Structures are given as C-alpha cells and as structure tokens.
C-alpha cells in the first residue's frame, strides 16, 4: 500500500483493507465473479480503463470528499504502474520516480506494513516501471507528501525538513515522558503527608501545580521526580537504575549531559540522528503507521546516498494537506 496524499493510498491486489473506501481500476476477474461483492467492499468507483483526465478528476474527488477517510485505489499491475507514474511524475523527475518505484515495488510484492491478509489476486510488480510520460497536475500542487522524503532531506542537512520530522516525531512520541508518568496520578496520594492530603489543599490549584511540577511531561528522563523519590523513600533511584539495573557505574557524566533534555530535543538529537537511528533500525517508523511509510526506503535513507531526491518538488512529509 503506497501513500499518495491525504488518506489516499495506491495498492496492488496483494492485500486488501476491507474497511476502507475503495476504487478499483483495471481487470480483476476474481472480483467480478464474486457474487457477494456489493456486501464485501465499499466501492466508490470501478474503472475497466482510466485516462489522465478521469484520474485527475478522481484525485480531486477523493481530496475533496474523503480526505479524512481511508481510501485505497486497487489496481491490476498495468494500471498500478500507470497511476503510480502519473501521480509521482507530478512531484518527481522521471529518474527519481524510477528510484522510488524500486522501493515501493518491494513493499507491494512482500505486502510489508499491511495488516490485511485477504488478497483478491496475488501479483508481482515487475522490476522495470512501465508507466506514462504524463504527469498529474493535482499531485504537482501538493505541498506535503511522504515523510520518508522529508527524512531523507533532513539526513542531508535540510533544516526545514528536519523541523518537519521533529514535529511529526514529537507528536508520535506521545505520552512518553518516561518513568512513572502512567502511574503518577495513582501514586500521588502516597507522596502526600496527612497534613497535605486535605480537600482544601487538593482543590487549591497552586498547591496541585507545585506538586505536579515534579512530573513535568516534556522531559524524556525523570530528572525531577528522582529527587522526590529520594526525599520520600530514601532511595537513590538513579544510582540504583544505572548501577544495579544497567551495570553502568560511570553514569554521572552521561546523566549530567542529558538530564534536562526535552522531548523535542531528544527526537532531534537521537531519533533523527543518523548514527543513532542506524544503530536502532526503523526506530522512527515503529512509532508511525506503516501504511504511510515504506520501511525499505526508510532503511536505505540511513545507509545510502539519496541525492536523487534533489529534484524532489514537494518539500515535506505525509500530513494531510488540508490538516
């Protein structure tokens, strides 16, 4: 399933996401013979053949009417290559479309990142893209598209692309201030003395704010809570964590360096750091939706030259352009 725009994807018939709006293009003999077809899928349109004008109209309709609903365009091999090249010709030079296709072809053939197990007809996309010379006006007007492109550009020093990835990852890296955040609310009563645990105190915003500050959520590490733990429980959590649980005696310099790191900085410094990301392969995609990312391409970005993206016409990642 290849991400195109908004919530619209292009797919072969190797894996079918049943609970989505669907458009079927090309010849699908098995599908035509299915007597339960109307009850099985929510098909918006079916085309035996489609041309540039009709495709352009289709993209616009999906963008206008179904931008927040997952919509998948299912094609036979021939039409997959046609729609693929027509769409990406609008945003990439011809040679870059072929480069991108080499990754996307593998994703389709191996059904990577799609949780659906149902197939209508299993096909193998050929190595060589035989598409069209024409290009979509609709796609050429997009301002955002696949996150991998932004990531590749960020790896190559593009500041805007980096910021886009940082914003995206920060958002995905949700609810992750680390230690105790999940249980903090439940554990708070244990940290309050009898004198503090009164309705007057608990309904006093200032008191609550001062108390809750120790669980500040924009931190990756629990640098504030550990002092409280030591104060309340007479337990040196950091010493314990590093020396006992992780067998790292020389932890203090490392801690001092990153103790106050914010979530945004953490994403920027580690998740989007090429060396770190290489050592933790697919770390970023793991937080994402594989539907909209090609992990083979992603991995390649970390290890190979992606200079061919220089000619990419669209700046950033996968967000809904209307979002």
């Amino acid at each position, binding site marked *: 399933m290849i991400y195109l725009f908004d919530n619209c994807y292009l797919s072969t018939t190797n894996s079918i996401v049943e*609970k989505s709006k669907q458009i079927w293009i090309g010849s699908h003999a098995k599908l035509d013979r299915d007597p339960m077809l109307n009850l099985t899928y929510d098909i918006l349109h079916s085309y035996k053949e489609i041309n540039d004008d009709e495709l352009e109209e289709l993209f616009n309709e999906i963008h206008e009417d179904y931008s927040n609903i997952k919509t998948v365009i299912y094609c036979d091999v021939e039409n997959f290559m046609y729609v693929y090249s027509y769409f990406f010709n609008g945003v990439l030079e011809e040679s870059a479309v072929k480069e991108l296709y080499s990754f996307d072809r593998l994703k389709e053939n191996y059904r990577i990142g799609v949780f659906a197990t149902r197939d209508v007809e299993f096909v193998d996309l050929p190595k060589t893209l035989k598409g069209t010379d024409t290009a979509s006006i609709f796609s050429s007007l997009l301002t955002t598209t696949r996150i991998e492109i932004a990531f590749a550009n960020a790896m190559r020093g593009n500041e805007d692309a980096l910021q886009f990835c940082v914003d995206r990852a920060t958002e995905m890296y949700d609810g992750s201030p680390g230690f105790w955040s999940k249980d903090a609310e439940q554990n708070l*009563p244990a940290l309050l003395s009898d004198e503090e645990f009164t309705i007057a105190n608990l309904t006093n915003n200032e008191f609550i704010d001062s108390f809750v500050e120790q*669980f500040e959520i924009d931190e990756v590490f629990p640098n504030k809570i550990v002092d409280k733990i030591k104060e309340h429980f007479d*337990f040196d959590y950091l010493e314990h964590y590093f020396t006992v649980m992780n067998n790292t005696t020389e932890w203090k310099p490392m801690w001092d360096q990153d103790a106050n790191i914010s979530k945004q900085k953490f994403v920027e410094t580690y998740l989007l750091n090429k060396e770190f990301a290489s050592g933790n392969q697919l770390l970023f995609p793991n937080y994402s939706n594989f539907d909209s990312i090609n992990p083979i391409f992603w991995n390649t970005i970390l290890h190979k030259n992606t200079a061919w993206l220089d000619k990419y016409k669209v700046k950033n990642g996968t967000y809904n352009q209307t979002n």
Partner: protein
Amino acid sequence: MLHLYNSCYAYPYAMFDPSSADYIVVGDKHAILGAGVENSFYYNNVFIHQCYARFKTYEDFINSNLLLPAFSNKQKFIIYCDNETLIKLFTAKLKSHIQFFDNSLYFDLAKLFGVRLKIKSKLIDSSNKEIINDLGDTFIELNSIPNVNKFPIDPYWVWENAGIEWKVANRNCGVPNNHINILNDLVNRYVYSFFDEAQESYLSRKTGGWAVDVNNQRFSTVASMKELYMEMRKEIALFTDPLILQFFETGVTEELLNDPKFLLLVSNDKVDTWLIRWLMRLPQSKITQLGLIA
C-alpha cells in the same frame, strides 16, 4: 476514568476509542457515537471492538438487563456517556456502598475524584487533557446530588464485588471480608510484574521449581513468593524494597495499611488510591456509622 466494578469503566464521550474495549453508549449521543468508525483512517489497522447496546438515558441503561453483565465483565468494558450520566453513575455507586448515605462525604469524594482527574490531565501528554480537566472541574464544583438511587443490584453482589478501597475501610467493622487475601494477591502480583524474565530466570532455579505449574504461567502458582522475591533481589532490588520486605516479613498489618507508601504496592487501574487514602483517614466510628457495604 470512573471505575465501576470488575473491569467496567465509565468514560466521557470525548474519549471514545473503539480500539480499546467492548462498549455501550448512554445518553444523547447514543445513536451516533462510533456508528461510522469502520471507515475511519485512524481505526483501520486496529481491532474495532463491539458496541453492545445504545441507551438513550441513564435510566434506560440502569433498568436494562445489561447492567449486571456490564458490571460483571472481567475483560475491560466501557460505558461511554455524557457528563450527566457519568455523575449519576458516580452517585449511584457511592449510594450502593454507603448504607447510611452522608451528603458531606459525598461532596468530599466528588471533589477528590475531580482532583484526581485534574491531576491526571496535567500528567498525561494527550489530546484528552482538556476533556479530563474539564470533567475534573465538573466534579469539584458539584453542589447538588443527582436524584438517583443505588444500583438495582443485590447488596450481596455489591458486597462480593466491592473494590478493595471499601473492604479495607470496612475491615474492622465485624463484617467478614477477605481484604487480607486481596491485598496479598495485589502485592504479589506487583512484585511478580517487575520481572518479565522471572518466569524463565528464577522459577526454574530451585530444585523442583518455584512454581507449581510446569510452565510457570501464573504467579498464583508460585509456591513461595517470598522465597522467589529473595532470590530475585539478589540481582535487582526494587525502590520500594523496604516496604516489600516488611510485607513479606509481617504480612498485611495495620501498620502497613496505614503507611501511605503501601499504596504504591497496591495501586493499579482498579484501585483508587485517592479514595482508599481518604477512607483510611476517617475515624472508625464514622466508618461504622456509614454502614459500608464491602
């Protein structure tokens, strides 16, 4: 959110998430909430749980034959509802547990629940922050008690299924309850849960094994949690170690129950540590006077 009984919770509409658990919808949005989720981008790659029923009003739900099955569910089950229904559920639950209802205690507990929600909203990094915070304000500002009765459920069922909060509060009132066993169970689970590898790393070390079942699938089959813990702590100690040691030394005692830190050991989704702490502070005479059903 609001824990009712077993694995049944009430959530506000705005926190609707059909990927989380089977559910019912109560209130003015009963006909529309979740009706079209099967076509949503956001729920495409997750399992969508079933909506069992939709009730127009709180009363429709309370008088339905789904009340007891919902409250008895051992798998997570959610009642999505409007604020009015949520407050009614909160009230009916308190009335079900407090035989001689006390208005001032009701408002204290409503404030406590509101505070809990507000603190939760400050601590989570989520788009639900504002929703939870506003709901917290609603409970804190409650100044009247909804006109609802206790749940139409056999008091014996309530006594059997009461949360540990009520059982601990009621422990010295001459009504038999098994709070010691439940607390033992909670702490043992807590200790056991710290070590994913415990089943493989520790359970097979002792001659004959630590566990009664050959695959060590369940902590409850561990022959001696104390011995297992002592073995584990040779390598990894927990930050609540002194408290756990005390627990294994003495069992659940009054001293331990009155130590606020003990809440760290028993807290989980279904144990309201705020409520338990509050009830523990009430004098014994007050507990007796309330006639808790626990």
